[in-house]
């Protein structure tokens, strides 16, 4: 990012900050917040799918065991009013609030928590086994106490209790048959949710809108402020932008708008635009490289490709300023794990050419060194344009690239099941800890055919594997941080993928809305403190 740009952003952030403090003194009770996102959710629980549309709406209805504050995601009391972790980090004791009821009036108890972790998270959530694999036993000595017994420490466990990651579901809403026959995802509650959250489902008019209404029995005194949260389904990107511009819609979270529209709307006086509030997700994009065959198996070739791409230009031109150049596998906004000593990747086409010559790939007929096929994520126009841009840049250093377009089903199959590709853009999240978000793509035990977003590159580095194993069983602290620093340096040097951009989630909302940004997963928070003028 150029310094002028940075200054501009900093000024904007400062101005936005003052504006919010000036107006945000008196939260007002009542009113409706309407947001838009596409596609429409397919279910109202992240147990069915953690896709963004479902995560956005279900986290207002369901809650996790505890809550989180700030970009660093500091755990604070929620449904569990207190907790204790034993010194050896093998026992977690949670005390539950006694006054919580489900949306259907039944009391919320320790049995529900046990069920939600044991049966739901471990059995059905894609990350459940990662979080709770070491949980050997869950004890419920009374209705309001839950004790987790672990076989080995899990440093990131305390951040696993987010509403989208480990939603608490009522045991009484499932029949024994549904559980025994693994029909949880087809249970009625997936469409007609019963949670403990500040909002409950009022109406779902498929294809049009979902209305959530205030939960009058919510356990937080005086909350939520809003009467209603409405999701308006508007399939067309330009039409979504028009709705936000006209004030028909108050909020376009995350990737709800096409980047050019974000830039345009961000400049309008009645709208606020912010990239804050997604630090706990850590979105990152890279070029995934198939290391099985020459020339990409040669590190120098990958380094040359990395040097041929102007990341700042990519951010500015293709992504309309949404994001910043990546400096490694961990996003720079992650306050707990990013190695701040990492420099930006150099852009140096001449050095790239020298590296390719050295690697034994001189320019041949038509000035071409070799040819490659590029795939890209089927997430929209920007991804196509980025692929075009990269093709152009690589042509400049003598690499001829053919672009190949696939839809999501085809892309997943080709990259993760067939392993039949040269390189492809890819987009993933760091989540709350590198053991969850980073290890997965680079550890050699995850070279597994058919596992999506795994180590499709065939990258195996025993030393790195060892570091991952160490970090996975060690409490957060300077020692663990040192391991993550080394991991980042190794991956930067080896380049099993070519790190491109930390894509920014730009949320755009009407200035009448307040209190949206509360932590590192603000759009997946329950919005109980959001209010409108």
């Amino acid at each position, binding site marked *: 990012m150029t310094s002028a740009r940075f200054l501009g952003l900093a000024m904007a952030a400062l101005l936005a900050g003052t504006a919010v403090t000036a107006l945000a003194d008196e939260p007002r009770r009542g009113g409706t917040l309407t947001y838009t996102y596409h596609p*429409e959710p397919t*279910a109202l629980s992240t147990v069915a799918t953690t896709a963004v549309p479902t995560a956005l709406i279900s986290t207002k209805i369901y809650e996790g065991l505890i809550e989180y504050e700030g970009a660093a995601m500091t755990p604070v009391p929620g449904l569990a009013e207190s907790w204790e972790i034993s010194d050896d980090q093998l026992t977690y004791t949670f005390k539950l609030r006694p006054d919580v009821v489900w949306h259907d009036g039944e009391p919320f108890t320790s049995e529900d928590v046990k069920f939600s972790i044991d049966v739901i998270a471990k059995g059905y959530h*894609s990350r459940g086994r990662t979080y709770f694999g070491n949980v050997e036993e869950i004890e419920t000595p009374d209705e309001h106490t839950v004790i987790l017994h672990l076989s080995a420490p899990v440093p990131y466990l305390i951040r696993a209790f987010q509403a989208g990651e480990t939603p608490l579901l009522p045991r009484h809403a499932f029949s024994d048959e549904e559980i025994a026959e693994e029909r949880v995802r087809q249970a009625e509650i997936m469409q007609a949710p019963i949670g403990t959250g500040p909002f409950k489902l009022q109406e779902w*008019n498929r*294809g*049009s809108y979902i209305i959530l209404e205030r939960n009058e029995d919510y356990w937080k005194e005086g909350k939520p402020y809003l009467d209603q949260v409405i999701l308006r389904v*508007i399939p067309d990107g330009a039409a979504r932008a028009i709705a936000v511009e006209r004030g028909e819609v108050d909020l376009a979270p995350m990737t709800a708008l096409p980047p050019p529209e974000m830039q345009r709307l961000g400049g309008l006086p009645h709208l606020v635009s912010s990239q804050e509030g997604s630090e706990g997700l850590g979105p990152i994009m890279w070029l995934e490289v198939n290391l099985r065959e020459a020339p990409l198996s040669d590190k120098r070739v990958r380094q040359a490709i990395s040097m041929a791409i102007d990341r700042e230009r990519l951010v500015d031109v293709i992504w309309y300023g949404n994001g910043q150049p990546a400096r490694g596998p961990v996003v720079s906004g992650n306050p707990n794990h990013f190695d701040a000593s990492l420099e930006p990747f150099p852009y140096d086409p001449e050095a790239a050419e020298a590296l390719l010559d050295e690697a034994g790939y001189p320019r041949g007929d038509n000035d071409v060194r070799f040819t490659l096929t590029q795939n890209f994520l089927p997430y929209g126009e920007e991804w196509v344009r980025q692929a075009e841009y990269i093709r152009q840049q690589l042509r400049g250093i003598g690499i001829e690239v053919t672009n190949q377009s696939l839809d*999501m*089903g085809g892309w997943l199959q080709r990259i993760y099941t067939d392993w039949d590709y040269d390189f492809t853009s890819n987009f993933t999240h760091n989540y709350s800890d590198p053991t969850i978000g980073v290890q997965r793509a680079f550890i050699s035990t995850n070279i597994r055919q058919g596992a999506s*977003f795994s180590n499709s590159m065939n990258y195996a580095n025993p030393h790195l594997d060892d570091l991952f194993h160490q970090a996975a069983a060690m409490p957060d602290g300077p020692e663990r941080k040192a391991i993550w620093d080394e991991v980042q340096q190794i991956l930067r040097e080896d380049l099993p993928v070519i790190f491109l951009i930390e894509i920014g989630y730009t949320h755009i909302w009407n200035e009448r809305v307040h209190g949206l940004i509360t932590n590192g997963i603000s759009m997946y928070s329950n919005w109980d403190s959001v209010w409108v003028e």
Partner: protein
Amino acid sequence: MSKATLVFVLRRLLQVIPVVLAIAAFNFLLLKLAPGDAADIIAGQMGHATVEFTQQLRREFGLDLPLWEQFLVYMTRLLVFDLGVSHLQGLPVIDLILARLPATLILMITAIFIAVLVGIVLGVAAARRQGTLADNLISTLALVVYAIPAFWLGLMLIVLFSIQLDILPSGGMVSIGAGHTGLAHVLDVAWHLVLPAVTLGLFYVAVYTRLMRASMLEVYGLDFIATARAKGLSEGKIAWTHAARNALLPVATLCGVQLGHLLGGSILVETVFGWPGLGRLVFDALLQRDLNLLLGILFVSSVVVVIANLVVDLLYGLLDPRIVHK
């Protein structure tokens, strides 16, 4: 309805069964050719799924069975009108379709009504003034409208009528949370329907104008028109009572054929206007490899198209009494 017509209808309905089943079987095999399945998509969406997780999904959806067995299960269920459960939404496919079908039918019928009505009037007007400035103007206009992409036209209409003039809504089918019932609900839907129906209909206006004009010119060359003129009938009466009715047959044929086409066109219009119809559902189902839902929609739409064509066949009899169903 005469007995002959009744027999004709029944026979045609019986013919529908093998046709629709063959379409369903063809669809099933065609969709199986596409790489990836719903388990891949859900596992992909979940970001951090393991191989075991993906296989668990396949087992839940019955996608782990051999292809012939899946085919057999699907066709057997189809015979008793069981369309199965949507992989992604976990709801019976028939419920999802029935929730969306009315919206699409309202949009399609209104659009085709606008298209046929305006198309006939303009077509007749152009034919009566063949070679004049008015004829050229109508023909050129029709060509221009025909060439405008529906999604662009839709956006332009939104800009004009909802942003600039602020008299029509920019999208949706009802006012959210208004809870209208009865007449108020009908008016609310109609108010939301104007822009999408006009957008979808305008493209076809061009088609019908051109067709009606050509058809009218053909009829104008026939002897009975000369007879009518000799009798001293007014040009207006000749055009509307004698020529137009005869010229309508090809228009009716095209209506039937184009219903399937219209269903395709409605995807774009439903997308731009957020109209909660089948078009958008089919698009999302395809991207998400929601096989049961996709097959269900294709099944229902093939039934709709086949039945619509039957209705058109019956209309022939009304338009031209010389046509008798045997």
